[in-house]
């Protein structure tokens, strides 16, 4: 049994300390009648890699915006262990969202710059973040000189330069070609192994979610809600071996079945 149902995963979680972040019955209603998200509860623990998987309109991006504090829940609570401050969060959007007028290094500097730190003082951190995504040679380039995959790497470097407690990723690789996406999937796991960050990742790809995450939260649409949580218990590091293993295929089948449940509802 490689797949565990929610109950078992929660049982394992109970042994851990208090969650880093918890959503408690969070709902979001737009314009008074459009229910984007209904009663979502989720505990995010230190070191988790959680994928929110579901069809469009299932509220996964809404959930991410709520966690990011970009909108506020209509009801329910979002709690950060020990409160939240500006450096706690790194975000990667579907587009690289870089400032075209600034160099790669200046883009990565942004989170620090907004906290009043000079470029010179942060040079070491910036170089380190760029080295982590393999772009140390491109610090002085402008975004337009980079390929789509490289721009996304810059975006990731910017998200992790403050060493945030949690990184949110909103379908970051959806617009990339398959080869680049696989490469970035591998790189993301390598990165996570190195710095041990906690990630909440939104995707509509079953394969991507199984390859990357330790927990998959399957969501359904109309109204957007969580219907399953499946744990992927395959150990990290995961590489090409895992991607072609029977184990991976079995996980994908199970996640697919859960997703079909979500769509079929």
């Amino acid at each position, binding site marked *: 049994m490689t797949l565990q149902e929610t109950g078992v995963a929660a049982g394992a979680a109970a042994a851990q300390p208090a969650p880093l972040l918890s959503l408690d019955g969070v709902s979001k209603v737009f314009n008074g009648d459009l229910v984007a998200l209904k009663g979502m509860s989720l505990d995010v623990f230190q070191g988790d890699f959680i994928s929110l998987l579901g069809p469009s309109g299932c509220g996964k991006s809404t959930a991410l915006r709520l966690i*990011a*504090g*970009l909108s506020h829940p209509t009801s329910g609570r979002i709690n950060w262990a020990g409160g939240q*401050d*500006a450096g706690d*969060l790194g*975000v990667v*959007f579907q*587009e690289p*969202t870089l*400032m*075209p*007028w*600034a160099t790669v290094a200046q883009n990565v500097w*942004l*989170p620090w*710059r*907004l*906290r009043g730190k000079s470029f010179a003082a942060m040079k070491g951190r910036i170089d380190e973040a760029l080295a982590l995504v393999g772009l140390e040679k491109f610090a002085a380039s*402008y*975004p*337009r000189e980079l390929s789509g995959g490289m721009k996304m790497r810059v975006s990731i470097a910017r998200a992790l330069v403050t060493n945030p407690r949690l990184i949110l990723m909103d379908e970051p690789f959806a617009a990339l070609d398959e080869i680049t996406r696989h490469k970035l999937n591998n790189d993301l796991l390598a990165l996570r192994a190195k710095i041990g960050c906690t990630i909440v990742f939104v995707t509509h790809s079953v394969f991507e979610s199984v390859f990357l995450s330790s927990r998959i939260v399957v969501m359904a649409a109309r109204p957007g809600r969580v219907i399953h949580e499946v744990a992927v218990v395959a150990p990290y590091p995961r590489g090409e071996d895992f991607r072609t293993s029977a184990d991976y295929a079995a996980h994908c089948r199970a996640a697919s079945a859960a997703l079909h449940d979500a769509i079929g509802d």
Partner: protein
Amino acid sequence: MAIADTAAAAPVLDEEEARRARARRRERLGRWLMPLIVLVMMIFLWDRICVWNNIPHYILPRPGLVAETLWVDRVILFKALLITLRTTFLALLVAVIGGVGLAVLFTQSKFFEMSFYPYAVILQVTPIVAIAPLIFIYIQSKLIGMLLCAWIVAFFPVLSNTTLGLKSADHNLRDLFSIYGATRWQRLRYLQLPAALPYFLGGLRIAGGLALIGAVVAEYVAGTGGVGSGLAFTILESSYRLNIPRVFAALILIAAMGVVIFMALSLLSHLLLRKWHESAIKRES
């Protein structure tokens, strides 16, 4: 065998490429040469029309006479040019400060924009020639009056373009700034102003030409008192005296000034944007 094939095939391709290169060279040359040829032909035609019809020089001077006047009157004309240039430049400067300042206020406060935007539009659509006489009745200083005239004409493109630019910063970047807890000032300084730069520069190029028009109108209305006579006043004065060659000489200088202002602002725009903005990037074809 394979080597022979390649050797045979290569020249065919080269000839194609060479033809394309020749076409490109011709086009580059033509870009300069064609307008020049047109200019020479027009001047020649102008000269002939004067001769064929026996037109007196106080009605339409021959091009040679205009050129001569440009040289003989160079001291007067150059002095006038400097005065008009100064008015234009100062007006453009005030237009930039006023336009950008108002644009920032408009984007910072919805109420401010709601209250004052309609009046900015009214100021823009009312012809400056109609307002100018009043300005010089109420404002004693000719210089300030002239600046005000030129400013009224020139500030609007800067205002409207910069406002548009400030509002068009990428939405995801705005979200990112919110997530990182950016202050209003940081958002303006690091996100909105750089995003508005290309729009502002577009407005500036239009404003440069308008500032010149504003300066010319102001000179026509205000005359000379206390400021010295600029090119527009020189035209007015010379036409009263039927010194038509000088009218033409001054006119040529005004047109040249407009072209130089436009080129200078285009160069400025290119230098500021060449590293990152799509408009300034050369593409290999």
